């Protein structure tokens, strides 16, 4: 695994941007791909995090604190060493229709891969809708206009989507399952799932599709909304 030293951190409550300096470079990371991040001790399992940004061996992750590993990242001082491997997963760009423009819809930490996508493929982005509950999140982002904050407007990203969506536009979404389920047909949805290996061998991250069981890590994380058998998740 690649040594990853924490060199910058900015947090707002339970969300944070964490920049790591890697000992080796990642191989051609693309938007929608993720890395497996491991703590030097507990938990022993590496966990998946989408690439939020990457340049010159500097990897930025956008992390929501929910449990042990994310808690460890939040409480780590600058200089703490973690380990990463990857990038894994199929880049969004290889799965989507490149002739469309996309509304990027992110909920919470789901914003991470969308940010990288908009950095790499600005020409494919029609609009960004990054949804959060509380206004404290504004501290973390420079680009304030993409933020849809429920506490401020009473609207969720899905509400706003309904207002701006029109036939012909694509939807590229990453966020909680309930949000993904409400999206229009044809949307591309980036799934989360508990992962073990991240590379398709251990069968931990199963999702049931019209064509049978697929692995989120190897066959995804992006799927067309219609492929998924949502009731199984």
């Amino acid at each position, binding site marked *: 695994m690649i040594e990853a030293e924490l060199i910058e951190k900015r947090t707002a409550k339970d969300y944070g941007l964490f920049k790591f300096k890697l000992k080796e470079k990642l191989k051609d990371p693309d938007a929608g791909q993720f890395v497996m991040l491991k703590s030097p001790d507990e938990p022993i*399992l590496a966990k998946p995090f989408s690439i939020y940004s990457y340049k010159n061996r500097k990897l930025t992750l956008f992390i929501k604190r929910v449990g042990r590993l994310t808690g460890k990242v939040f409480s780590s001082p600058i200089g703490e060493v973690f380990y990463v491997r990857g990038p894994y997963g199929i880049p969004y760009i290889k799965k989507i229709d490149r002739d469309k423009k996309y509304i990027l819809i992110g909920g919470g930490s789901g914003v991470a891969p969308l940010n990288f996508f908009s950095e790499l493929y600005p020409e494919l982005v029609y609009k960004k809708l990054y949804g959060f509950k509380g206004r404290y999140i504004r501290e973390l982002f420079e680009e304030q206009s993409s933020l849809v904050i429920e506490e401020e407007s009473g609207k969720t990203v899905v509400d706003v989507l309904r207002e701006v969506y029109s036939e012909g536009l694509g939807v590229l979404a990453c966020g909680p399952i309930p949000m993904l389920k409400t999206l229009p047909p044809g949307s591309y949805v980036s799934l989360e799932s508990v992962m073990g290996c991240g*590379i398709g061998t251990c*069968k*931990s991250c199963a999702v049931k599709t019209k064509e049978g069981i697929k692995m989120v890590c190897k066959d995804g994380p992006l799927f067309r909304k219609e492929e998924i058998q949502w009731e199984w998740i």
Partner: protein
Amino acid sequence: MGVDLSVEVLGLKFKNPLVLASGPAGFGFELQQYLDISKVGAITLKTVTLNPREGNAPPRLVDTHGGIINSIGLQNPGIEEFVNIIAPKLKEIRTIKIGSIAGFTIEEWKILGEKMDKIKDIKAIELDLSCPNVEGKKIWAKDEELTQEAIKAVRESTDKPIIAKLAPDVTDIVKVAKKAVNAGADALSLGNTIEAMRINIETGLPVLKLKTGGLSGPSIKPITLARVFRVAEALEIPIIGIGGVMNWQDALEYAMAGASLVGIGTAIMVNPQAPLEILQGIESFLRQKGVEKFEDIIGIAHRGGF
């Protein structure tokens, strides 16, 4: 001075004692992109059942302090697809391949044994008698008589070496081991995951959809190690020690307790390159100790140590 890491056992020459345990490494194809499998002694392929299995609904995995609990539920394409599609490609995986099978009935064991027997690339057959993750299914290794019958059934259907993979969480592992050997097992894998669970206190419900799963990783190492030690003390049979091997020290502990080969599962998931680091560590430890052959330390804890 080179250190000889090879192990001769089951009529096979393993280039080193590391075996990728069944499951976490799949059939090896995906893993191969991240690990040079030709560097490990062997791979035990993901367990195959008679019929294809989707596995359990998610979540299938949760971690604990020092371990992980999985309830994959033997997701696999079934023996037909294995024979027709997977087996012909197995030569790409350039190490010794051990097939793994799990029957639900004696008849199934027999058929699975026969099918595996015909695959040239499979050098030995492991009987997964101990997977705790199939709802409603009996765990064979929890019953000595069933263990014996399953092994006998496969014994009749193949001349390839048979490895019985036993459950560590039984009352008397030595007793089960003896039955397995009497029934015709050529080696024992000790052990498998141990039934375990986590409850999500927010919902008040088990985290895993299946409720319980199998615990693996560092947590179980001291437990399985004691099982290996006990069986090695009582029986003359090659043992594959499996459970919580994360680093070279763990692997050496198993060897010293009496394991001829050492399996790694969870470590592969954490870090696909782990086997290489483990091998390096074993080699430099032995060199430093002036031990020329890995085989010399197998069971050394029963012979007064160094």
